[in-house]
């Protein structure tokens, strides 16, 4: 397990990942990252840096070091299991294609 954005103690200010919700009802989407000394200034800077053109209605900031990522070397073990499991998708069941409202 690694934290992709963790630059450790080498930087003067910690790194924050910025997420923006573009409209009510949508999920927050990763917009980018920035450095700031604390969460208040991170939110403020995120507004200045990533929402200059009405990109969103809500901003989240998360310390990059708080993000835990799956191990890139374990890609196979983590993400290959859906292969061969087409039956998890509705489109697998074709017998019912002509049946209305099913």
């Amino acid at each position, binding site marked *: 397990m690694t934290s*992709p954005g963790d630059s450790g103690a080498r930087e003067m200010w910690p790194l924050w990942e910025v997420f923006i919700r573009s409209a009510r009802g949508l999920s927050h989407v990763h917009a980018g990252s920035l450095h700031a*000394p*604390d969460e208040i200034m991170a939110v403020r800077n995120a507004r200045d840096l990533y929402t200059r053109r009405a990109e969103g209605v809500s901003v989240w900031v998360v310390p990059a070091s708080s993000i835990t990522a799956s191990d890139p070397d374990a890609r196979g073990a983590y993400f290959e299991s859906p292969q061969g499991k087409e039956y998890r998708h509705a489109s697998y069941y074709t017998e019912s294609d002509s049946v209305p409202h099913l």
Partner: protein
Amino acid sequence: MTEDDFVGQRRFDELIANEQRVEPTDWMPEGYRKTLIRQISQHAHSEIIGMQPEGNWITRAPSLKRKAILMAKVQDEAGHGLYLYSAAQTLGVDRDTMFEQLITGKAKYSSIFNYTAPTWADMGSIGWLVDGAAICNQVPLCRASYGPYGRAMVRICKEESFHQRQGFEILLKLMRGTEQQRSMAQESVNRWYAPALMMFGPPDDDSPNSKQSMAWKIKRFSNDDLRQRFVDMLVPQAEILGVTLPDPAIRWNKERGHYDFGELDWSEFYEVLAGRGPANSIRVERRRRAHEDGAWVRVAARAYAEARSVEPERIAS
């Protein structure tokens, strides 16, 4: 080469061949990492240094609207620098290291920003020609094989076209003005035209890194191809503006389906690149001073954040 490197290289080659993006946690060849760090940080430095010629005109812009537009543009450039520094950091280089390289003159940035902007018309020429060349260069970079770089470029390109259009509009307004305003616009276009064409880098035969960058799908088109594309766009735009492009060799070539244009004076490009341009020392010096004079802001912000994070009782006592 270790076993891990062998497996990593094979996976990397697959990603590149299949037009997939390489992400920060993926294995990548050292040369790829180094090339990207150099290119992305140079790009970031160019945005940050690029704030200067225009920042200098904010107070002298001819109307409140033009001041507001110019401020928005300079703010965008700061933002572009920050997006790009963040992208470079995902490759393992520190922000502080990059700043240090810029203010000590160790790192390069686009040679175009070493020219001065003595008249208001230069705000038009920089927008139309310099930002125009930048867009031409940057749009294909949205498809760069390195994920964080490509994503930063998408955001930058969206903002950049405002920069080009506001510049075009400045020139258009001047060209519709008095004789004096028209000659100011023309004189400015004369000065910026060739340096803007040089922004694509040296001719393909003298560009040693291009081939590898294209093989890695960082670059998608060669310097000369992009330059040609830019000239093809400029000629009709210049006609609408009513300005003359300062190159008598420009003419439509029916066989090629492109505009022919004359040789550029590359000795000037290399002079400016070597630090002997009109404003090299001013630009770096001003950046260094801004960084050093701003040190107290960084220290204060951090002290404030630390004070806020301790228990309120302890602050009171």
